[in-house]
């Protein structure tokens, strides 16, 4: 033991000293290596890593602008923004997506549809580190539960976002349109910078047409975030420019009245202020709740809406293409007078039918027994078909078409109404090209009373009626009345493109208006029951469009035909006749007759617009001044 302990030769000590020196050098070399590595990272590559470090912590976030609001002409809010709390997921920050979703559905109720949509969006191309919404419109209890469990869900956040809300949606869905989630096609189209923080885009109507103005300009902020993406502080911020607030010509009261009058029926109403072209009411009945579409409609709700026999999603006012029937006669009368095909004194014998030649096909007057000798005024008032057959054949298709075109048929003549269809304005060339047949005189006969190939939308009928009310002065229909910002409204409205419709004898306008007054106020006018007892003069024209055609001499019993095969009831008109403040087109699908179903609707709108509403306003003003007086 002693030997072992003291076995301590000088040789062993020197050996160890040499080895220790080697180790010292070894340590020095490696430590210098570490120091060199530090020098490389901290001095040589310092810039690179500073950039990396800043990129880590500083992120640029877009701040979406609040979407512009939409008001009616009396500044009643039609479209606003409401905070909605949604659950969003940043996939890059979630470790195990399936497990996270499973645990989330333990504490929240996530609809299968939401889950499906989420998984779909997960597979779609998207910006990295962008939050994908999973569930919308969380209630307070769900928000509280998420707050408690938040630490278990990295990458999952409750986010407040402003979402479009339409407080009068059932009334305004067709007039305003709606916004919805940006889809893949739209993603290709939009400016990725300006829409960086935006999830919604106008899908139809005003929302679509004025998308640019309503959207505003995106803002951004530099924020410092931690590794989990939580924002710690805002370093720099450029505020977004909110979208423009729009004021429409639309009057919610009239819009509501229109819907009330059409309650339980199908059809459309357009009311236009002739002087301004402002659309006062745009109703397509039945309507629907556009709010359902904003965050994404459920499959069941959509199926119910889209498969309903009443077609609530179909915008009849803009996209319903109907035979205008006798409501085309005022425009035909203008065409016939101006083209010289007839004059105010010309009389035609009506035996109850019209034949192009002896023994040929009989085109019947609606009054089978015939009206005898008729002139233009009488034919308008009684809606005599035979007079228009004869005049129509005299004019021929090209003259009729060219005049109707100047009334805005066969085109979308609106300024800012999105999605309006053009109807069908037939010409001889059109028939040859599409039907591969020549234009027969019989086609002109049908066209002269608004049947046959001619198709028009309620919007077109209202536009043409307003043109008559304006005595040929074109003011294209529009919804936008004003913007609430500093910019003038002209900056947002497209240019007018239509020129004034000038007649050889401008007095013809007054004459045609006279004949339309005769419809409403004449002893034998078809609209006389609707015009009875009015304190003002109105001009109008009824129309009854066949839904299916009858062979000649066929009789039919209205009762036996199913409700949906009954004739469409139409009416166009304006009031007061000498100083028009409102022009309307009304169509009641399968309403039976224009005079029975459509004209009374128009009369009620005239009364409301010309008497009821101004009286209410006067009362409000008086009571306001009374209250003001009482305060003093």
């Amino acid at each position, binding site marked *: 033991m002693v030997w072992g302990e*003291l076995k301590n030769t000088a040789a062993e000590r020197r050996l160890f000293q040499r*080895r*220790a020196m080697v180790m010292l050098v070894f*340590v020095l070399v490696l430590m210098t290596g570490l120091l060199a590595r530090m020098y490389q990272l901290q001095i040589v590559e310092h810039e690179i890593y500073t950039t*990396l470090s800043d990129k*880590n*912590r500083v992120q640029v976030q877009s701040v979406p602008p609040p979407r512009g609001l939409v008001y009616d002409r009396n500044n009643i809010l039609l479209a606003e923004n409401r905070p909605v709390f949604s659950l969003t997921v940043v996939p890059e920050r979630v470790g195990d997506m399936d497990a996270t979703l499973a645990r989330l559905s333990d504490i929240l109720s996530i609809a299968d549809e939401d889950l499906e949509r989420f998984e779909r969006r997960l597979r779609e191309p998207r910006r990295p580190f962008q939050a994908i919404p999973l569930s919308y419109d969380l209630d307070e209890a769900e928000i509280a539960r998420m707050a408690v469990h938040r630490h278990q869900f990295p990458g999952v956040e409750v986010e407040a976002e402003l979402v479009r809300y339409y407080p009068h949606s059932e009334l305004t869905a067709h007039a305003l349109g709606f916004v919805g989630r940006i889809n893949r096609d739209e993603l290709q189209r939009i400016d990725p910078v300006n829409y960086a923080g935006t999830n919604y885009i106008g899908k139809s109507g005003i929302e679509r047409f004025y998308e640019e103005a309503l959207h505003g300009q995106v803002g951004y902020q530099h924020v410092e975030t931690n590794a989990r993406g939580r924002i710690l502080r805002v370093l720099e911020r450029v505020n977004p420019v909110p979208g423009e607030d729009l004021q429409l010509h639309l009057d919610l009261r009239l819009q509501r009245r229109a819907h009330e009058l059409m309650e339980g029926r199908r059809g459309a109403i357009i009311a236009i202020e002739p002087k301004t072209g402002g659309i006062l009411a745009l109703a397509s009945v039945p309507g629907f709740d556009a709010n359902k579409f904003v965050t994404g409609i459920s499959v069941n709700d959509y199926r119910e809406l889209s498969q309903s026999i009443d077609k609530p999603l179909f915008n009849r006012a803009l996209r319903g293409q109907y035979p205008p029937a006798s409501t085309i006669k005022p425009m035909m009368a203008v065409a016939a007078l101006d083209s010289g095909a007839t004059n105010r004194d010309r009389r035609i014998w009506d035996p109850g039918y019209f034949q192009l030649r002896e023994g040929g096909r009989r085109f019947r007057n609606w009054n089978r027994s015939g009206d005898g000798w008729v002139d233009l005024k009488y034919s308008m008032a009684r809606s005599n078909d035979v007079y228009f057959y004869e005049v129509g054949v005299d004019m021929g298709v090209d003259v009729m078409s060219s005049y109707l075109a100047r009334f805005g048929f066969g085109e979308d003549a609106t300024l800012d109404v999105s999605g309006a269809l053009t109807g069908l304005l037939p010409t001889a060339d059109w028939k040859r090209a599409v039907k591969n047949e020549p234009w027969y005189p019989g086609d002109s006969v049908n066209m002269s009373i608004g049947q046959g190939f001619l198709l028009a939308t309620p919007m077109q009928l209202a536009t043409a009626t307003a043109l008559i009310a304006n005595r040929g002065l074109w003011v294209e229909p529009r919804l936008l009345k004003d913007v609430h910002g500093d910019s003038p409204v002209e900056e947002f409205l497209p240019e007018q493109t239509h020129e004034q419709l000038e007649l050889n004898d401008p007095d013809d306008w007054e004459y045609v208006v006279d004949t339309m007054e005769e419809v409403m106020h004449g002893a034998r006018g078809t609209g006389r029951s609707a015009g009875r007892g009015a304190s003002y003069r109105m001009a109008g024209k009824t129309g009854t469009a066949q839904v299916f055609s009858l062979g000649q001499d066929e009789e039919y019993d209205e009762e036996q035909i199913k409700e949906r095969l009954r004739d469409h009831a139409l009416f166009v008109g304006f009031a007061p006749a000498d100083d028009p403040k409102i022009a309307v087109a009304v169509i009641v699908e399968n309403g039976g007759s224009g005079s029975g179903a459509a004209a009374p609707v128009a009369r009620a709108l005239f009364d409301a617009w010309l008497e009821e509403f101004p009286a209410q306003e006067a009362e409000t003003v008086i009571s306001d001044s009374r209250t003001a007086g009482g305060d003093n």
Partner: protein
Amino acid sequence: MAGSKLWSSQSSSDLGRNRSVWSALHLDPVLLGLLLLLVGGGLFVLYSGADRNIDVVKAQGIRLGVAFVVMFVFAQLDPAVFRRWAPWLYGLGLIGLVAVLLVGVGAKGAQRWLALPGLPRFQPSEFMKLVVPMMAAWYLSRYYLPPTFPKVMTGLVIVLLPMFLIIQQPDLGTSLLVGMAGIFVVFFAGISWKLIAAFLAMVSVSAPLMWFFVMREYQKQRVLTLLDPQSDPLGAGWNIIQSKTAIGSGGMEGKGWLQGTQSHLEFLPESHTDFIVAVLAEEFGFVGMLLLLTLYFLIILRCLYISVTAQDSFGRLVAGALTMTFFIYIFVNIGMVSGLLPVVGVPLPLISYGGTSSVTLMAAFGVLMSIHTHRRMITA
């Protein structure tokens, strides 16, 4: 240099002319001073690395207190005690390692702890960091040095046996440190350079074999990640990218204490444990790293001095091996954090948060002080 003065004054007391208070306490004031400096600075860095959590600093302070007590106790023991007990402790350690594999507890898929009733939980592998060099030194110092080839082989078996058992846990970091501790004993004993060259050649040949037959999937992944961190920037490469970013963005003077964005914004993982040196580099820059490495180097220098001046071969071999183990800690940790070496679980000695490694390290310094201060009055 002030240091050399301290050294010479200390060496004069070594000759025993006037036994100071330090000698009576069996402490080395130079080493103790350097350690206290390191530990004190380390707590400041830890406060930042733990994101201003003072509780973490307090807990570490208590652990370090315990570790210093352990060091003091070990310093009081005569090196002869270590030598006498080395074989028995070694046997006990092997039993412990086998027990860990059979009934051990642990986390993250590795069994490292032994929870015996009535005893605090402990890691036999940690214990072996001290015992393996002692056992190897005990065995080799029984004979004339340098050892003969059969003695070397026996010495290597003594080292490789516990190393193999620790790898099974699996704990690559600790097995590496235990193995290195033993191999340094063999090196210091004077194994011939030809043999060293032969071993190195064998290792380089067997490395590919290790890759295919021994290394586990996660270990291979770490090596691959080291070679190309960008291949999986959000997964395995994250740690390396973020720690390099922390170090590099520190620059010359650093971002300032508590100002490191990488650690405080949680981009840097393990910022108060294995990756704490990145916090130091980020907040104190190249200057801070220079100071840290200098401090470590001074400690190593002092320990090598203690080793060289030890009275017998056992003391020299144990002291030298423990010193070099300490260095391996430093090199592996900083090399790993700065992206030079694969990620292995080796803490930064006496700075990373964690009690076990601190206690083991301070016990080793206790052994060094014991070797330095227990001297027999004989002339060499």
